[in-house]
């Protein structure tokens, strides 16, 4: 898998746009990130977070206000797009409407000055890779959205770029096709061994496809890590909120040992919680606990938190228990349903909540 070598890196990259009148919009604020060779790397965030701007800077459609973009250690930020060994799959696909499927795929190779024979061989190989051999002479307006997506992929992969950029390429597809294309993209990335940089606002897509994810908001990268890191160990409130459901608790740090902190919760229990890298907090902190990393116990049994069960919602595979804590906050516990189960917690009755070991995580903010 990932060989660990850096393929592309951003160093202190900022991008300011001149807005209406005197306003300048900060699209990217001193972003630094290193993306490894052969990695499926995802930029995840809400619209307007700067993820597409960062992609456009890497592609060369825009130039950073400050900072460097390094491809294998070389600054490519000032190069025009046609001088960068980087190709893009556009959200709208941007297939050339006056060319056939094969001509679209051949375009980049022709511009690179490849021989006719080499181009034809490569086009055939690409059509095979995306399973579109029968449609090579079709007009791009005569094929379906999913097929256009494949042509866009084949066209971008044909010149064998060092890095492939994908700008929300699945957003125009319906649910079923999107699921198929997610698998297809993983296969292509595996077969070609090219570094993929994938932009999406869909957290599920990011979790299922990526080797690593960078969560972005307001022009900054908040956290970079594996899907499991990001989900289990969110380091900022925004990350915890943006990805999955979560519970927030207030507490006070009573001691730190290594990457763990002892935290005294508002209603008295003392738990241990993971710390984000390089953070040594003191005083009041916020911590997060995923709903599936806690369970309900009958009142009186040893528990980390105590409260009253407000509602229990049955979801088929699992049940969501919404608890009002004695301290006043809300807490959700998600329990997988087992056959013949049904723990028998009644709405309105007092309950205890036990947190799994290392379920809690301290937030940076």
């Amino acid at each position, binding site marked *: 898998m990932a060989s660990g070598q850096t393929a592309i890196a951003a160093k202190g990259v900022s991008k300011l746009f001149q807005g209406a009148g005197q306003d300048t919009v900060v699209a990217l604020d001193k972003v630094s990130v290193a993306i490894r060779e052969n990695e499926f790397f995802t930029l995840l965030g809400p619209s307007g977070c700067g993820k597409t701007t960062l992609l456009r800077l890497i592609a060369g459609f825009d130039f950073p206000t400050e900072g460097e973009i390094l491809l294998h250690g070389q600054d490519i930020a000032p190069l025009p797009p046609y001088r960068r060994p980087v190709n893009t799959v556009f959200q*709208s696909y941007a297939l050339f409407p006056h060319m056939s499927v094969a001509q679209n795929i051949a375009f980049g190779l022709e511009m690179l000055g490849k021989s006719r024979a080499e181009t034809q061989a490569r086009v055939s190989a690409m059509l095979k890779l995306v399973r579109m051999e029968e449609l090579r002479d079709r007009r791009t307006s005569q094929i379906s959205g999913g097929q256009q997506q494949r042509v866009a992929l084949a066209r971008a992969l044909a010149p064998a770029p060092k890095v492939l950029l994908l700008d929300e390429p699945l957003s125009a597809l319906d649910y079923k096709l999107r699921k198929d294309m997610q698998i297809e993209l993983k296969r292509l990335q595996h077969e070609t061994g090219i570094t993929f940089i994938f932009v999406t606002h869909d957290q599920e897509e990011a979790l299922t496809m990526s080797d690593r994810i960078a969560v972005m908001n307001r022009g900054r990268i908040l956290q970079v890590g594996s899907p499991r890191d990001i989900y289990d160990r969110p380091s900022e409130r925004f990350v915890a909120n943006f990805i999955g459901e979560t519970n927030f608790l207030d507490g006070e740090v009573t001691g730190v040992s290594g990457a763990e902190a002892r935290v005294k919760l508002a209603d008295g229990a003392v738990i241990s919680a993971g710390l984000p890298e390089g953070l040594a907090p003191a005083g009041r902190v916020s911590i997060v606990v995923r709903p599936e990393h806690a369970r309900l116990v009958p009142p009186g049994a040893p528990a980390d938190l105590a409260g009253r069960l407000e509602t229990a919602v049955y979801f088929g595979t699992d049940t969501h228990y919404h608890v009002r804590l004695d301290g006043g906050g809300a807490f959700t516990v998600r329990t997988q349903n087992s056959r013949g189960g049904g723990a028998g917690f009644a709405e309105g009755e007092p309950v205890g909540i036990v947190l799994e070991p290392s379920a809690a995580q301290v937030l940076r903010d």
Partner: protein
Amino acid sequence: MAASTTLKHRDVRDQPGFGTMACICLIVLYAPILILMIWSLNSGSIVTHWEGVSLAWYGVALQNEEFHSAARNTLIISVSATFFSTVMATMAAIGMTRVKPWRGLGTSFMVINLPLMVPEIITAVATLSFFALLAGQLNLNFGIGNIIIAHTVFCIPFAYMPIRARLEDMDLTLENAAADLYATPWQAFRRVTFPLLVPGILSGMALAFIVSFDDFTITQLIAGPGQTTLPLYIWNQIRRPMTPEINAISTLLLLVSILFVSVSFLIARRRK
């Protein structure tokens, strides 16, 4: 709610008197042209006295040396003016849609389109004064070239509009995609932008041609001896006792106009 829905769905064609009004409009617009065409088939020699159906006057027109000369002049002027104005309009349209917004962009747009709004007689007088000055002060006279220059100038906005519309409709991502696939700006223009622009350019050419082909006011003022164009020729003919020859010539001109307008229309309709 229900009432407003039915109102919305009601067609304007259901309004009382719609059909009558439409018929009156069509008659006012096309009856004179139809009458002109019908009388061109008159075998007699007096325009207002019908004697029978014949194509004789077309034969007379096609053998008329003056008509030939006028047609030749018109063709030379229209084709040249179409070529030069379309080239300039294309460059202007690209220069005004494919660049970062610059100070004076709005003004430039107005300046290009101004000839559409200035009364033609004013343009004609101004053009005449300009060429008179050139001839008087610098002793410069390009002959038929003068007319070509004048036509090129007022054809530019007509050629410019459909080309610019086409450029504005075009998805800019396509040009980004070409650049992303290693096309230099010139290659991207030649391989992507230009092929997609061709319908707009053809449409602009057809419009420019028809405007030049039909022009009377400006040409009348600046044309010298031997530079008679078809509209001027017809004008001169109707000041003499009229024969159906003039109807035949007018009908021929009309057919050329219809052809070009149809071509322009069809191209515009096939744009998507």
